């Protein structure tokens, strides 16, 4: 008995050490110079916590099997995944984290004594874990475009109703039912409602808003782990879970701010896309340009700003873009990349793609750094970006994106817009940039257009 007590006191101290490592790790992960080390530190923290837990494990076979399967699947996914599919992968992993805590809470349901507080913790942990799991799976489906469902369809409406019902059931379980003895059937209903509720939570949210949802689910998966920590009286679960909860929350807020929308609006309202339909269409002349004309202008310019957007990811054009950048530099042109925080479909999307294509991160500049000197830029090359360069955000108080910070390319001397058509971007609003005096449209798939420019340069 004394021996076991000693072990658990010792474990607790090691858990604290591991918690401090996690904290330091995530701190370092947030800075460019130390990010790799930070990730390593956090992995070390994980290893420490797991290792010290293993010393008095009851069922080693179970553990070996579980960890082995997990290690194989996890490593395979991590090594195989394409950088453009990172959003889906993050969604999936969020789901797994949620599922693990869901199972933990479920199992604890059979172990806890008749203590009402522990019972409440089981209910809440089950709920957060379950919603994170099923919600993440839906987010995964939407992002990988395996799942397409109308917001107005009957099934969506049904599931949304289930989501609200599940919330009410949880509140009932937490605040009222504890007066009675919790019964198995009661809990089974919660299990089912929770899983369906998670689906209902995410399904009505537009595909483009998925990055915000993923961040939020990331946060939830952390909170679920923290609650599991409360349930199991385990402080490293509490700390690590809280850190994830905080990090997810911050990313959610950053994204919402960069889109100038509230989180509530994103989750429960969505863009009022109908309003843009009734809006008077922008009139004016669109001036297309050919690849060879564009080449001539680029060749003679001394400073070029490249603004990538979702279209670059779709066209997988990051490698040719980097090539173009290098050719321009070899030609004596100063090249910078203007990266908008919500360009693409997940936070930092463009940074990851460009990093993958070997663009050094110190030529990437943020809107605040580039906007004040935009008038010194000879050519702004907009590659598959739309909303993030839409001047309505600063000029048209009625626009749905009004107030969103943008990269103000319309102040550059010349603007090239590379896209396939005149269709709008994610927010579904017209872009007056296309009709400006200094704008030229280079129609076509981004990879093809840039590829064309690259071969012109090489000739």
């Amino acid at each position, binding site marked *: 008995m004394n021996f076991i007590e000693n072990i658990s006191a010792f474990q607790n101290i090691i858990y604290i050490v591991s918690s401090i490592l996690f904290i330091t790790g995530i701190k370092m992960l947030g800075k460019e110079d130390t990010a790799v080390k930070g990730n390593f530190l956090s992995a070390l923290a994980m290893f420490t916590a797991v290792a010290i837990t293993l010393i008095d494990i009851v069922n080693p076979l179970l553990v070996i099997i579980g960890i082995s399967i997990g290690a194989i699947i996890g490593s395979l996914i991590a090594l195989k995944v394409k950088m453009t599919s990172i959003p889906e992968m993050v969604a999936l992993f969020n789901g797994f984290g949620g599922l693990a805590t869901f199972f933990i809470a479920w199992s604890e349901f059979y172990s806890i004594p008749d203590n009402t507080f522990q019972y409440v913790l089981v209910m809440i942990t089950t709920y957060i874990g379950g919603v994170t799991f099923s919600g993440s799976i839906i987010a995964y489906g939407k992002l990988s475009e395996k799942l397409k469902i109308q917001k107005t369809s009957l099934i969506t409406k049904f599931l949304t109703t289930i989501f609200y019902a599940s919330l009410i059931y949880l509140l009932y379980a937490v605040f009222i039912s504890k007066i009675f003895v919790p019964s198995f059937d009661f809990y089974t209903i919660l299990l089912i409602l929770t899983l369906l509720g998670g689906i209902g939570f995410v399904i009505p949210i537009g595909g483009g808003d998925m990055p915000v949802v993923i961040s939020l689910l990331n946060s939830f998966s952390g909170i679920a782990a923290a609650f599991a920590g409360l349930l199991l009286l385990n402080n490293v679960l509490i700390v690590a879970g809280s*850190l994830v909860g905080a990090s997810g929350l911050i990313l959610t807020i950053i994204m919402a701010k960069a889109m100038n929308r509230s989180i509530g609006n994103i989750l429960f309202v969505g863009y009022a896309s109908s309003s843009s339909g009734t809006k008077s269409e922008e009139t004016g002349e669109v001036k297309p340009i050919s690849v060879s004309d564009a080449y001539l202008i680029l060749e003679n310019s001394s400073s070029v700003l490249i603004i990538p957007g979702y279209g670059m990811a779709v066209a997988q054009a990051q490698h040719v873009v980097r090539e173009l950048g290098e050719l321009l530099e070899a030609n004596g042109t100063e090249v910078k990349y203007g990266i908008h925080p919500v360009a693409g479909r997940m936070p930092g999307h463009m940074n990851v793609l460009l990093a993958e294509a070997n663009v050094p991160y110190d030529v990437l500049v943020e809107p605040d750094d580039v906007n004040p000197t935009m008038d010194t830029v000879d050519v702004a090359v907009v590659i598959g970006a739309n909303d993030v360069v839409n001047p309505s955000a600063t000029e048209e108080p009625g626009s749905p994106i009004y107030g969103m910070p943008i990269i103000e390319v319309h102040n550059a001397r010349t603007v090239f817009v590379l896209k396939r058509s005149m269709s709008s971007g994610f927010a579904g609003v017209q872009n007056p940039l296309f009709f400006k005096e200094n704008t030229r449209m280079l129609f076509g798939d981004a990879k093809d257009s840039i590829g064309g420019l690259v071969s012109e340069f090489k000739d």
Partner: protein
Amino acid sequence: MEIYVLLGFVLILSIYLGLELISKVPSTLHTPLMSGANAISGIALVGALVLNSDTHLQEILALLAITFASINVFGGYLVTNRMLKMFKKK
């Protein structure tokens, strides 16, 4: 002193600390941070390891929890590392 009050306090302090530490993360690191956080949420593994397995159902639940949490841990750290290694200065 109630243990839950104290643990709840640790939870609040950690969230506060997390918010402070991460609030100024540059946008370059948003994606790696997300997947790094993902890996950390695999800490559920530690919880999964201490579950009772008195019944068959509990045994299965523990196995599943361990497996999924492990996927998170291994997948999360590896992919984050892969991503971070791509970031280079000039």
